[in-house]
């Protein structure tokens, strides 16, 4: 083991609607296969968020839990403090929205987010449900994003956040872009286990913490790459 990596799963009791555990499992696996030690911490919404984590994960959630999670995280302050000192934050769907300045609450009313990503979200006219394909910002060096989206959010970026990707299939933020990032804080509408189909994105997050890594042996990556090919073929067909 060369070093130890601390993963923090933020509020699985509130923000884990659909397979969000997958992101944690993928990061753990890809770190271990490179002999990087991993320690994972689950922090429920009645516990303080530790400030010394390396990668923080936030999942999706229904409206009420999302509002509650935002309220608790603001009061706790731990996640914002960690992001401030340069920790990696990866958030999907409801978790992505609540990183911003505001999002739509249970009845669409503007609700205060954490303000650690320069985005504002509201509710759109129709629900976006289905496969999403998007070309990731070339600066990140990650192959095309493939995922499944299921949300009614519309997200606008401010000047301090860059789009994660440009949508070719699906809805994303609603303006042709998908997700957003600034520094090491990254969010996406590709819901649930977004890193499962995007091992390149998982490696980007790991690399932000541990620096350049060797690629996995081909046989260890074969199934994930097969899954990527299958899903991409299914939508562009």
């Amino acid at each position, binding site marked *: 083991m060369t070093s130890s990596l601390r993963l923090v799963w933020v509020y699985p009791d509130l923000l884990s609607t659909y*397979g969000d555990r*997958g992101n944690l499992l993928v990061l753990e696996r890809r770190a271990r296969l490179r002999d990087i030690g991993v320690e994972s911490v689950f922090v*429920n919404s009645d516990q303080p968020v530790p400030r010394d984590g390396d990668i923080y994960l936030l999942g999706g959630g*229904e409206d009420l*839990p999302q509002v509650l999670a935002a309220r608790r995280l603001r009061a706790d302050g731990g996640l914002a403090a960690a992001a401030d000192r340069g920790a990696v934050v990866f958030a999907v769907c409801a978790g992505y929205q609540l990183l911003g300045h505001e999002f739509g609450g249970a009845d669409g009313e503007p609700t205060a987010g954490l303000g650690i990503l320069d985005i504002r979200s509201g509710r759109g006219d129709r629900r976006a449900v289905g496969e999403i394909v998007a070309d990731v910002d070339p600066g990140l060096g990650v192959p095309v994003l493939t995922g*499944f989206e*299921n949300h009614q959010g519309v997200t606008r970026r401010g000047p301090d956040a860059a789009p994660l990707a440009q949508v070719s299939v699906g809805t994303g933020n609603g303006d042709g872009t998908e997700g957003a990032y600034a520094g090491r804080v990254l969010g996406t509408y590709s819901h*649930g286990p977004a890193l499962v189909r995007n091992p390149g994105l998982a490696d980007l997050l790991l690399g932000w913490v541990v620096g350049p890594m060797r690629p996995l042996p081909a046989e260890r990556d074969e*199934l*994930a790459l097969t899954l990527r090919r299958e899903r991409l073929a299914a939508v562009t067909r």
Partner: protein
Amino acid sequence: MNKLPLRARLATSVGGAASKVSRLAGRGDGSVIGGVIGLRLEPGLLAMLAQDRDVVLVTGTNGKTTTTRLVTAALAPLGEQIASNAFGANMEAGMASALGQAPDATIAVLECDEKYIPTVLKATHARVLVLLNLSRDQMDRAAEIWLLARRWREAIDAAPDCHVVANADDPLIAWAAAKAPHVTWVAAGQRWHDDSWCCPRCGSHLRRTGGDWRCGECSFTRPPVRWALSGDDVIDQAGRVRPLDLALPGRANRSNAVVALAVAEVFGVDVVHALRGLRDVVSVAGRYTTVERRGVAIRLLLAKNPAGWLEALDVLRPPPEPVMLAVNAQVPDGRDTSWLWDVDYRRLRGRQVFVGGERRTDLAVRLEADDVTFELVAGIDEAVDRVGHGSLEVIGNYTAFQQIRTALGRAA
């Protein structure tokens, strides 16, 4: 039945003919198509067909089909003819078809899809509404479950004569049912907690101690129960303990059976007689059936969502019993396979695992992350050939399960 207006009578007889054609043509079991055609002829058909009958509606994320079957069995001692959509066709067409095919039945036990409860409750003036559980399920097309529970609350509020039989162990169910003036609360258990960490009333963190739960901030608490499942026994309101002794396997089915006893009580059926009916049920719409194939005894289990998979994995015979898992993502299954990551597969380690279905790659990646070794197979026959002899457990989600049944012949 003769009291039905001419248009409705025509609708049911045309629908009935279509059911027969569908069955003869070998396309489905005929339980839906008759209802679809009937409803097209007469949109108020369900209300007309339900008139003057005692209707029991059964809904929830998991256990609907089995509970419908068990309630029917528990009511059998009444000696009345009972209409039921016993094969899981649980939308309006399936219900109308079941009623149309049994014009003389005075009782109807109807499985109802969660989304349709508001309209169907209103149309049928149900005597009893059974609420089993609510958990994440096919979220690409179903509403978020809290919204679903809120719609149930409104529907129940508008039907004060309906007697609700509800699972007190599921906080979301307890919240939905609390609106009803007449509720029989059942401690039916809740194996899956991941969708009920929050108080449905105020959103705060729920506190759990043993089987009990209460909100840490508002006054919402688990209601006192009249029937309870305890291990393999049922306990009634007087504290009498009776063994269930079901032929159906698993904790989930024992829980469904206790719910059925609570429904039987509403109808005045003696618990001893009702229990006898429950014990006679050995398989439900192909589930739990054992089929022989090339010398291998195959047992079929259906699991459609994370809570269902948890229950199905509980039912598996211990290792080294081989198991085949099959997953599809067609529209009835939900087109999103993210839920695979909510299921803990680690306990499959140490047995031979076959992976099939149209989305077997998704499942394979999932098992790889849990360090479960597996073999990809093209279909049930390949798994059977590799097992060679003895027995094989099969768990499939909805359309994968149906495909396997078809491959094994309708005997399954």
